[in-house]
Every structure is written in structure tokens, then in C-alpha cells.
């Protein structure tokens, strides 16, 4: 076959050579901001990040989040937050940012040896 074709994208094979990725190009006109979406699955659970979407404003983001992420009662509460309002740590797992907790094993209950016969500890 003259053209490289892959089928990995679920719905079937398409060419992958000569296909633009568009990485780094920005559209000329103004686009709606990106929102991150968090859903509480049921009472008693934390909100969990489920994905993102674009919307013109907060209210539309909430409505779109309901339609995109809770079509089957997946949630009882939704948070949407503009992606540019999120401050994040560096993603690398070995980041020195998390080093202070690394050598403090005495913060875990298993650090302490207690005789087996002592109950309720």
C-alpha cells in the first residue's frame, strides 16, 4: 500500500502519512475558553476530574458538562473551572517538590511496632 494506514483509532483504518497534526498552529479567530470538568459520582464521594470542554461562559460550561459527561446519571454534582485558573505542580513523579514527604516514614501507622497481643491498635 502506497500510504501508511493505521486502524488504531477504534473506528477503522485511515492514512497516517501526510496527515497534518497542526501542532502549535493557533486559529486566527478568538475561541471559547477551555474548562476542566469535575463530577461527584454520588453523595459521599469526592468530585473527580472527568475531562474538559469549551464554552462561552461558566453557565454554558455547566450545561455542556451535563450533556457530555452525565448522560447516564454518572453524577449528582458538577464543578467546572477555567483551565487557565488552575495552578499545577510539575508533573514529573520524581519532582523534588514532593521530596519532603519521601523520608518521613514515621507518618505512617506501620512505622510503629506494637506487640501482637495489644488489642484495638
Amino acid at each position, binding site marked *: 500500500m502506497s500510504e501508511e494506514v*493505521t*486502524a488504531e*483509532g*477504534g473506528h*477503522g*483504518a485511515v492514512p497516517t502519512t501526510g496527515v497534518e497534526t497542526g501542532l502549535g498552529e493557533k*486559529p486566527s479567530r478568538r475561541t471559547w475558553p477551555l474548562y476542566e470538568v469535575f463530577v461527584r459520582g454520588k453523595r459521599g464521594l469526592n468530585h473527580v476530574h472527568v475531562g474538559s470542554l469549551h464554552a462561552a461562559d461558566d453557565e454554558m460550561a455547566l450545561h455542556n458538562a451535563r*450533556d457530555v459527561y452525565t448522560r447516564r446519571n454518572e453524577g449528582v454534582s458538577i464543578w467546572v473551572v477555567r483551565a487557565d485558573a488552575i495552578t499545577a505542580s510539575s508533573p514529573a513523579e520524581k519532582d523534588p517538590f514532593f521530596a519532603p514527604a519521601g523520608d518521613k516514614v514515621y507518618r505512617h501507622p506501620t512505622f510503629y511496632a506494637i506487640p501482637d497481643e495489644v488489642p484495638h491498635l
Partner: protein
Amino acid sequence: MTVTEDRTGPELDLEAGFDRTIGADQRVEPRDWMPEAYRKTLIRQIAQHAHSEIIGMQPEGNWILRAPSLRRKAILLAKVQDEAGHGMYLYAAAETLGVDREELTEKLISSKQKYSSIFNYPTLSYADIGVIGWLVDGAAICNQVPLCRCSYGPYARAMVRICKEESFHQRQGFELLLAMVNGTDAQKAMVQESVDRWWWPSLMMFGPPDDDSPNSAQSMAWGIKRHTNDELRQRFVDMSVPQAAALGVTLPDPELVWNEDRKSHDYGEPDWAEFKAVIAGSGPANAQRVAHRRRAHENGAWVREAAQAYADKQAARAREQEVPA
């Protein structure tokens, strides 16, 4: 102190870190360093997958107004809405790689990016709705279940959501066909005719044979792809044969036969010339699909503009109220 590190040192460290993550079968997350080729491969794959979900609404949407009952219409509406949702999950995943969603849409409607060849076949009868659910979504599930373990975290997580919903798609299709094959002779014939048209294009969804798929090895090494095209195609054939028997339909392949040695079915070769032609743009519905998507996007421009104008006005009012009296 001696400094021995050369100028490529940090880059090599990053690459070693990426290789360790992949080697340990851990997930790569959006802001991790990744090789540009890995990033671009994922963007192409996720974008084409998203586009396929979006274009995939058209062949089925074709029958919403002609569904034979309110029950069938509600089901079909829910399914088409799911396809839109799947497209949205996937565009969200693609965006974590640094592309803009708007730009991906532009590339779809200008045919610079592709979608799956299967959606370039028309839906000629209502039985096609059932057969698409059974065979086309069934083939998609074979492809998609291993993607839930893809090395790129956001893609894998999107696939988990999608796979849960695809199960509804496949079962509603099969149930629809069961109802039809238990109906009149004309309905049975309609199902068989539909199966005859969709079987081979469904097999083609898995892509060319392994020996004609040179980039597969790289995708497998990166943990993006978990099984070869032929492995997945074989799995799909083996799953479909007993299902076809349950429906009482014949799969249109005279070479399809159980091979006791392999504990699998032997099957005929799809027409790769047709496959190539459809991908190249000569399928029955290529031009129509893209034109329709473009028209829908352009006709929706005023809605997007109005929403933006409203948001701007609300924001301006909020600012005015903040001014101290």
C-alpha cells in the same frame, strides 16, 4: 566539581524517563516530556478517532426521522447523541497534547485530516441501523477495548468511558436485528442484504494486513497499540460467526470455515483495492459527509457568535458593578 554533561544531556535524561515510564507499563500524562513522534502519532490517531465519531453520526442520523416506532427513535437519538459525546471526549484528550479543538474541526472540514473509511458507505435501509450496531460497533469495540490500556493516560481514560457506552450500541443493534429476523420474509431478506453490504467493510476497519502495516511495530513499542490488525480482525470474525448463526444470517464469505488446528475461523481476503479507493476519497459518500459537516459547522457560526456576545455583555456588566460607588 566536574561538569561532564554535554548539551544533549538533559534531552537524553528526559527520553530515558519516558522510556522508563513506557517500559514499566505506566501511563504518560499530558505535561510529561514525550518524543515529538509519539505526540504527533497520538494527535493523528485521536483526531481521526474523534472525527470518526462525529462523522459517524451522519449515516445513523439518516434514519432518525424514519425510525419505525417511538421506542426505536428514542434509542437511535440516544445512540447518535453518544457518538457526539464520544467525539467530545476524544477532542478533549487530543487537546491535552497541545492542539486546539477548533483547529481540528477546521482540518476535518477542509479534508486535511481523515476519519474512518466505514462512514463513507451509505445507510440504504433501516436494517443498516441494526447491522451498524452489531458489526461496525462490534468491530470498533474489538479495536477500542485494548485502547483502554493505551500508554497515553487521557486517551486511555476517554476509551474507558467510550467502551462502556459502546456496549449499549452493539446490543441495541443486535436486538433490532433479532426483531427483524423474527418478522416477515421481507424483513429477514432486508437484514441479509444489509449484512452482505457491511460485512467486508467491517473487516476492513481493522486496517491492512500486518505485513502491509509498517508503523505498527513502533505503535506497539510505545504501548499505543496492543494487538496487530490481523489479531484483532481474527478476534472479530470468531466473535461474529456464532452471533450470525443466532440471527440466522449468512456471512457473505465462501471461504469462511472453522479451522480445528488453529481453533479459529479461516476467512477470505477483503478487497484491499476497494479499501484503498474509499480511503483515497472515492467511497460512495466521502464528499457528502465532509460537505454536510462543513455546512453544519458554518450554519452554527451565528450561535457561537451570539453566545460569545452574551458572555461578553455579562462580563462587562459584572465589571461595572464592581466599580466602587
